[in-house]
């Protein structure tokens, strides 16, 4: 067989399988993968939505989970607002997510610019250390950070949680911006300097606009880390009024008065901000990550 294959004239692309067959196989593989992914992602999301918008009595009517809603009700959301601290949790989440996203992105832009534009001793080591620290699981950092914040008296503050979340997201953001700035030609800046622009002015007029896809990706990443965080909020915040929505929602399951309907409703609310961001900024996300070699 081997020798016959060798004698037979090779088809296009050096394979004995014709190119048309290859293309067909490739398409089938893509469809199957897409189908599997969508089953595992879409079905849970659908279940969540279906339960969230029906009254609990309708969902479990007749002893079976009722997944084809007959009508829509906001009852679960009303219960969330009136009987739980969901609004407070949500506000907490928004505050720490916004501050951590801002802090992490700012750090990443500054570090990325510095790492690519200035030479200093130990630069490669610093860059490697940053990437290495990204390998840690958040829980590894959580206990030492708890000790630090406890000692400093920062527990139960937005400030502490912002720092803790930034500690998780910043390494990857820095690495991303470091990669991104390597693709921004230094000649662009030099050309601005020769024309009389100061370094700061050049950063504002040239570097930041050109690096926009990069820092938007970094910001999206930092947002996702902070918004979805559970570990850090659980460790740093111990008072009910300081809980974020992820921690708060997890506690609903322990309460007798809150059922599946409300839990799914709060899950739906948690999912909305990331969904909007993915929807409106996906183009930037892809641009930024493709530079980081993460296409």
């Amino acid at each position: 067989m081997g020798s016959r294959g060798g004698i037979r004239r090779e088809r296009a692309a050096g394979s004995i399988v014709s190119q048309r067959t290859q293309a067909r196989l490739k398409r089938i593989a893509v469809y199957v993968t897409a189908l599997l992914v969508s089953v595992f992602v879409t079905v849970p999301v659908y279940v969540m939505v279906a339960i969230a918008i029906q009254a609990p009595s309708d969902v479990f009517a007749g002893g079976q989970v009722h997944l084809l809603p007959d009508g829509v009700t906001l009852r679960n959301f009303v219960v969330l607002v009136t009987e739980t601290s969901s609004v407070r949790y949500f506000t907490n989440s928004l505050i720490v997510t916004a501050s951590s996203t801002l802090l992490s992105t700012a750090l990443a832009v500054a570090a990325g610019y510095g790492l690519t534009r200035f030479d200093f001793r130990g630069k490669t080591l610093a860059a490697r250390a940053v990437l290495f620290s990204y390998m840690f699981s958040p829980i590894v950092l959580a206990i030492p950070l708890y000790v630090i914040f406890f000692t400093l008296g920062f527990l139960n503050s937005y400030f502490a949680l912002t720092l803790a979340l930034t500690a998780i997201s910043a390494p990857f953001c820095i690495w991303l911006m470091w990669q991104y700035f390597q693709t921004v030609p230094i000649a662009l800046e030099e050309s601005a300097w020769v024309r009389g622009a100061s370094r700061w002015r050049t950063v504002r007029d040239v570097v930041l606009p050109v690096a926009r896809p990069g820092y938007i990706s970094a910001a999206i990443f930092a947002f996702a880390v902070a918004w979805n965080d559970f570990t850090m909020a659980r460790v740093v915040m111990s008072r009910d009024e300081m809980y974020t929505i992820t921690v708060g929602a997890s506690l609903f399951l322990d309460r007798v008065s809150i059922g599946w309907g409300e839990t799914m409703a709060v899950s739906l609310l948690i999912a909305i901000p990331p969904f909007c961001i993915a929807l409106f900024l996906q183009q930037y996300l892809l641009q930024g990550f493709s530079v980081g070699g993460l296409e």
Partner: protein
Amino acid sequence: MATPIHLEDVRKEFSTLGETHLAVDDLSLDVPAGSFATLVGPSGCGKTTTLRMLAGLEIPTAGRIRFGETDVTDLPPQERNAAMVFQSIALYPHMTVRDNIGYGLKVQGVPESERNERIDDAAGTLQITDQLAKMPGELSGGQQQRVALGSALVQDPDILLLDEPMSDLDAQLKAELRVEIQHLHAELDTTVVYVTHDQTEAMTMSDQVVLLREGRLAQADPPQTLFDRPASEYVARFIGTPSTNVLSCAVERGETEATIATGEFELSVPADALPSSIDESVRLGIRPQYLHPGGGEHRFEVTVEVVEPLGTESVIHGRTGDGTRVDVVTSETAGVAPNETVTVGFDREHAFVFDREGETVLFGAELATGDAREPYDRTESQSRSTL
């Protein structure tokens, strides 16, 4: 206003990981106000480093740089009235062509109405008026290059620095822009320093060609002088295409005459024409354009390897008996085929004699006009040298 440029013993070292690399080695140079000087040389010869020092993007390790009377050695790039066009063109991708060209003026605080006027002027000169509203990404390579030139000249700089601005363009566009840049230089009141590795660009555009070798000045002269009187074997080989042929020759000194010879030809020169430092051997340079199949005073045989037709002329690539490469540019290619032998010859006034270090010790042209010992047809030599 155009400003003369003076470099005095400028030296630039780069240190990486404890190793020092000498990029520019005690370079002294004067570029007169309003002239067009080209820095040329192979990659790594220090030409771009020199240009970047003129722009202020690198600070010399030692030496002084003056623009006219002003010492600019330690001035940051922002404070020199120089404009630079980068090899990578460096247009801002997020600004329109108009904003790109006008950015320098905006930084300097020129009011918008005046800014627009000057942008329109520059765009008109460069024939890119239609492109002003576009983004750089929508332009072709040649148009982008024009925009980069526009951004440089809209500032009315004292000194215009161009760093291999045409290296990414195709041959036809290069030829077009070459003419354009010369036009601009004629119109503008500015001193131009142009960096290229392409000796054709250097020869066609400049008032002065500065040839560098490993950070040192090899020769700085007008193009024709560089071609006719190269200071060294390096210069002779770098300038002119194809490269100058160089043959190793033995020297026999007599009472009044010295003979430069290979096995095949002998060239007698007055004994005092060769410096006494020359003992047994020299290297003889002859440009391919001055070697003629079947003609010339001094002849030798060449085994043909490849013939490249160029339209009106052809380049014959071959080797002599001892394996030295020889190129011949000629229009007489009848009967010349690979692996055949042709006899080629040259006249003595077209020869350069280099010593062992590669310095030129004798120009054939001096022999022909000076001490004419042998009967010699001078009219023919003159008509040929004007070619």
